[in-house]
């Protein structure tokens, strides 16, 4: 069961970070005065949440046993899937118009 949990950990972390940043973005847009951009503070909050989410992956890599073989590789691949998905899908917080 622990192994299954480790396999699911990476994508689950992505799901959490994605939901948090998406929710934060919606909340900031709802409270913004203008229709276009949120301003520097809100942008920093979004980028900060994204970076914190990425940072959350780093200690989790230490949880994976340093063995080789399929059983050890799958949790590692799961973490990479989560990390790459977090990097790629939330990258827009740095470059696009906010609202």
């Amino acid at each position, binding site marked *: *069961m622990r*192994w299954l949990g480790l396999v699911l950990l990476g*994508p689950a972390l992505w799901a959490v970070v994605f939901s948090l940043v998406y*929710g934060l973005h919606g909340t900031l847009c709802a409270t913004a005065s203008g229709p276009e951009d949120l301003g520097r503070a809100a942008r920093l909050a979004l980028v900060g949440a994204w970076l914190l989410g990425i940072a959350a992956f780093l200690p989790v890599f230490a949880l994976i046993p340093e063995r080789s073989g*399929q*059983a050890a590789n799958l949790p590692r691949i799961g973490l990479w899937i989560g990390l790459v*998905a977090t990097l790629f*899908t939330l990258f827009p917080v740095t470059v696009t*118009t906010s609202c």
Partner: protein
Amino acid sequence: MSDTSLTPRTGTIAPNPPRRALALHRELQSVWANDRGLWGQMTAVSHTTLGLRFMATAIIFFAIGGILSMLIRAQLASHQGAFLDTELYNQIFTMHGSIMMFLFAIPMLEGLAIWLLPKMLGTRDMAFPRLTALGYWCYLFGGLIMLTALLFGVAPRDGWFMYTPLSSAAYSPGINADVWLLGVTFVEISAIAAAVEITVTILRQRAPGMKLTQMPLFAWYMLGTSAMMLVGFPPLIAGSVLLEIERAFDWPFFDPARGGDPLLWQHLFWLFGHPEVYIIFLPAAGVMSMMIPVLCRTTILGYGAIVAAILGLVFLSFGLWVHHMFTVGIPHMALAFFSAASVLVAVPTAVQVFAWIGTMWKGSPQLHLPMYHILGFFLTFVMGGLTGVMLAIVPFNWQAHDTAFVTAHLHYVLIGGFVFPMMAAATYWMPLITGRRRVKGLGEAAFWVILIGFHGTFFIMHLTGLMGMPRRIDVYPDNPEWVWLNLTSSIFSFVLTIGFAMFVLDLILQATLGKRESRNPWRAPTFDWAMPIPSPNYNFASLPTARHLDRDADEVILPLARGEGILPGAPNGRRELLVTRVGDAQPDHVGVLPGNTALPLALSASIGVFVLLMLASLYALAGIALVPVAVLIWVWVRGMAPGDNLASVAVTPGLRLPVHHHARASLGQSGLVAFLVANGTLFASLLFGLAFVSVVTPGPEAPISTFTPRTTAIALGLVTLAVGLASACVAWSGRHGAAMLALLLNLGALVVLVWMAATQLDDPTRHARDALRAVMAGYVGLHLLVAAGMAAFALDQFRRGEITVDVTGAWPALRLWQRYTSVTTLVTIGVLTAQAVMS
């Protein structure tokens, strides 16, 4: 309790001595066979019977949906078609989509999993056979309600995704939309039931020693699918319940004039709707992963990569739903999030396609009939996937949204990614179903006619869409330039239909006229072929163990038939199977399954009565109709009582295992956990609705609340205290007194909640915020009621002596439910308090 001394490592399990196969078969048949005649069909709970019945019924619905599509194509063949009027056309295209999605694709994959999984995993049945039967009857009755509505001209007409406000009472009077909302929700009972038992069966019923990393890939795919169903279907159910309440009682969840938001429906629908595409695709990909290596005489390339790809798909598919809503005016950054996720999801899909191509490359592909359909899949699905990537790009999506291009794309994905693999699977597993060989020639011809008919119909539809033709229009008098394209599509659609008819005829000929087939005709290495053909209800005379893994099915057929595996025959006259642990699949205990019963039929019929009364707007009577539902559920659970036979079971010489009544982690306990995952997602969907209406919806401000803060705070404090104490009672003690206390505390909390709803909550019809508060209160109240019912059931079990030091009875289930109820009650109170304070 499970005695660990009784459960040694599987490597030490000694084989049973060989017995006469025929005697074992007769012994098992007397226990596992269906009753005779029509009554026997109505009371059957066997996964073999019900899996096939699910698939057969789904094929019938597919045929009906196909006939509707021919009517659509006949109407569109000319620009001023007079074949159907607009009202009927709307009903027909809505029913076509709804049937294909809810009454064909999902039940088909459920049926396939129910029929195939136990055979592949080396067990005798699904975890909850009565639930399988309940799911089937709910599916059938729900489908019949929708079809009957079509015959009477009151079928849904607002498109298969039922967008509000078009589907709201103001714009869709009558019962048409209610038929969809109630009928589909009725059918979804079967989806949730299937998801629960697929999850539990895969995690707890694998052959001893079959680790997760040794499972056949189909089981991995189905584990991913069932997890997605547990999380994906509740948002749809939540949305359907909210919309039905809005239509029935005027609670304005989606009415912008009263603080609601039509976009909330779209979010809830597509939170289900996009994962649904992968829910349909993953089982199809699962059968591909099983068939391709066998038909190429090799092993699958990249097992680990495929498992990782499944993992990625399962999660990423929940981050895409907004790509169906790119044109509704959501913020740019959100568009970018979902566009990125939509592009990213192509990667794990491509990993699988390349793994299959690589497997074919390293093996020696043989062009048997299933391989024709596999090649048809590659061609069609890859094209559909590429147009999917095009639609994931926002600027293109804005141009192509709601055009025939999208219709073409979704048919390439669904027919390419589901129907072709299912046809391959049907031709591959037909010998195991019928025991007969196919009649050569017709199947190949059917394939070519289907392939030509499909691409002739839908490839051209891309062009029609790019020329600007919207979906769902019945005439286009001002656009004669679309006529030749539509006429061509219509002609080929009839070719496609002829092809499907030929395919079904081929199956019928095989079932009726085919010569006797030999065992394991494909020389496959998996357990599903290590049994007699056609497969008996019990699958295996004795269950396979670790030493049967990684051997050709041919080598293990006879030893298993002679009882040399584990748990041979049915010496106790009960339906027994082995329950193993989640991670390492070590033997844990023996599960005793219920026999044939009409209870699932009766329960689904009583739910059907409730649905019909709701459709007739007889709400008071509908409430009363829930009483027999509750009574039947009580009878159902009473059926799980241990009875007299609690003795441990000898599964091999020298190894006895306890029966499930003594087990700490029974199948029922695992099933409840899976159900609570789905229930938790439903709860989260309601919270999402509350947050959406509170934060994002631009509608009018909510009126000032009229509740008395002091009184409300005291009442909420009492509810919190009561559920907290009830939870503590059942957690710390397993005694009669604790059950009584839990019953009283839950009932007390319920009374306070009802009083508060009656006196303190604002009128739910005046604003969406108030309506959502009332729904949240109703959710908590329902859970308190169920917790009280479970405590009463436990009390009854104490009275009957069915809960003892060694026998857990319903107590673990009560403890889990009570804990869940406490958490959701506290979260609800916290969220509603925060919302009240902030507003």
